[in-house]
């Protein structure tokens, strides 16, 4: 059963189209992340589901009911905002229980649930404090608690971790994931951080310019990107793209480099076809031992972080990034041999940019 059904949803502000014909189903209890570059409409989509913006056309269903004209309070959704949006003039416990008090629940139930949520998130000692007296991480927890305490049908997250520092973000990420496993509530999570999207979600939705580019499990997107945009967006450092032409026998592809090197294709293609060849930095190996394909590149710069080494090659006409785990003894200006397996070569049509 689907908890959220989005059907041919469009949103425009005047003549500007923000979302163009979005259709998406979210299963009950699943964790779905919306990811895309800034301005792609991911936050707008979330706000449409919450009821904070008016739908231009299409429908949104929550738990099987069309909610297009329902105000937010009748949608049984809880939302965590990027800025946390804690009510500055209320204590933590008043913030947590605001929704319950609005619904006129008995005082005893309110107190019990505030205490239980406080305990769940480690806020028990902070219930009487004001939001301004809390640290960033604590505020984040209160914002989370405010959503949990209501026991909603759907959780909406609008980049909830982006205001935290790096270490805290990593911790909150796993806490959030555990919380979801425990509560099992349907979650729609907006982020621009692909690590968050990949590690937390059951399903990732990649958006660009108001259009869904691909929907799939995190590793599906990584291994089988539907088009060049998704291939370049998922994975860090980003996938390398080189132009190439399929050889006459249809079994290989010639790189558009000065040296016109040839790579064998995983499966035959029509000869003479122009394609984008996608090579993930981490799939290429220095020296090429154990890899089926080999080609030569000239090293430009080398960046070493200790655990990883990133080698950037000279532009020929495009430069490549090669990622090696550990340290590598490579000097700039030298020519090195790189190996890759045929199955790790991605191909995209040069015009449509769709995977072939």
């Amino acid at each position, binding site marked *: 059963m689907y908890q959220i059904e989005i059907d041919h949803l469009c949103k425009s502000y005047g003549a500007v189209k923000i979302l163009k014909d979005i259709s998406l189903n979210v299963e009950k209890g699943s964790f779905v992340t919306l990811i895309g570059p800034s301005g792609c409409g991911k936050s707008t989509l979330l706000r449409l589901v919450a009821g904070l913006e008016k739908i231009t056309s299409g429908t949104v269903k929550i738990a099987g009911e069309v909610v297009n004209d329902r105000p937010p*309070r009748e949608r049984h959704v809880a939302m965590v905002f990027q800025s946390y949006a804690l009510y500055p003039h209320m204590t933590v416990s008043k913030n947590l229980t*605001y929704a319950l008090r609005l619904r006129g629940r008995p005082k005893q139930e309110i107190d019990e649930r505030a205490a239980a949520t406080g305990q769940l998130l480690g806020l028990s000692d902070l219930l009487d404090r004001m939001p301004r007296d809390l640290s960033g991480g604590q505020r984040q927890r209160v914002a989370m608690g405010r959503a949990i305490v209501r026991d909603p049908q759907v959780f909406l997250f609008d980049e909830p971790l982006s205001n935290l520092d790096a270490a805290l973000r990593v911790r909150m990420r796993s806490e959030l994931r555990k919380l979801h496993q425990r509560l099992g509530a349907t979650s729609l999570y907006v982020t621009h951080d692909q690590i968050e999207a990949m590690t937390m979600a059951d399903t990732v939705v990649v958006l660009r310019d108001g259009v869904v580019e691909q929907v799939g499990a995190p590793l599906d997107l990584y291994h089988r990107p539907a088009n060049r945009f998704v291939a370049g967006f998922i994975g860090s450092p980003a996938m390398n793209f080189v132009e190439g032409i399929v050889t006459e026998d249809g079994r290989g592809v010639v790189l558009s480099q000065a040296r016109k090197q040839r790579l064998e294709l995983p499966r035959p293609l029509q000869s003479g076809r122009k394609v984008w060849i996608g090579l993930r930095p981490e799939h290429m190996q220095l020296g090429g031992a154990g890899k089926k394909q080999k080609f030569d590149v000239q090293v430009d710069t080398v960046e070493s972080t200790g655990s990883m080494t990133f080698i950037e090659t000279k532009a020929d006409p495009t430069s490549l990034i090669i990622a090696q785990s550990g340290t590598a003894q490579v000097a700039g200006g030298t020519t090195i041999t790189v190996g890759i397996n045929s199955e790790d070569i991605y191909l995209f049509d040069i015009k449509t940019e769709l995977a072939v």
Partner: protein
Amino acid sequence: MKRYVFLLIAIVLAAIYLFPLYWMYVTALKSGSDIFRYPPAFWPAHPRLQLAQVFATYQVDRYVWNSFVVALGATFITVLLGTGAAYVLANVRHPIVTVALFAILMLQVLPPSLMVTPLFVAFNQLGLLEWPRFAVVLATAAKTLPFYIVLCRATFTQIPGELRDAALVDGNSRIGAFLHIVLPLARNGILVVSTLVFLQSFGEYVYSRSMIATKELQTATVGLSSFLGANSNDWVGLMTYASIYVTPILIVFVLLQRHIVSGLTAGALK
């Protein structure tokens, strides 16, 4: 060194600016002959406060009460109508908002002395001059409303929209979110601006002078001007009256001075 020079200049300028205020208080304490002495004394030889006498002779209480009623009425109407308008203008993103704000600012430009004749005619036709103080309240509110809306809007724009959104998602209605979340946060700004509106209405002259014919209903500013007749020259009485009228305003200003300055610049820098 430079700092002290500037401080000195500031003190001198403040002294020049505040001298009339000082002269008002000093004259109120002088006797009739002291006033016309040459060279004038900066402090009277026998300071004497004639509060009770002035109160009784000129019915100061009645005038100040009328001023108070007019100012309170005007402030009430301004806050009641202006707060909602300011909130809407702060939140709606639409080209018409720019037009509306410009129109509001234009209303501020029109001086009361220009507006008073058409207003008088209109109010007369409507029969509003039967309740002259109410007519003055309406006219004054029309003057203070734009001022209030512009400043109040600046306060509202400082309150993040996500707080309102959070309240909506938490289960409140639009009006509920405004009353529960936005209004408490804007309280300080609203208080400061409404105080300014009150003080401004308290000193209103043109509308009261023109629309209130009955002496019993006239405001303190009009009462003050009646001292300056062809054959009256009770300067001590005049200055005592003025002091009674001005002192409460001064006290309010001094008390709220810090808030007023921060309230006025709120939203200006961002």
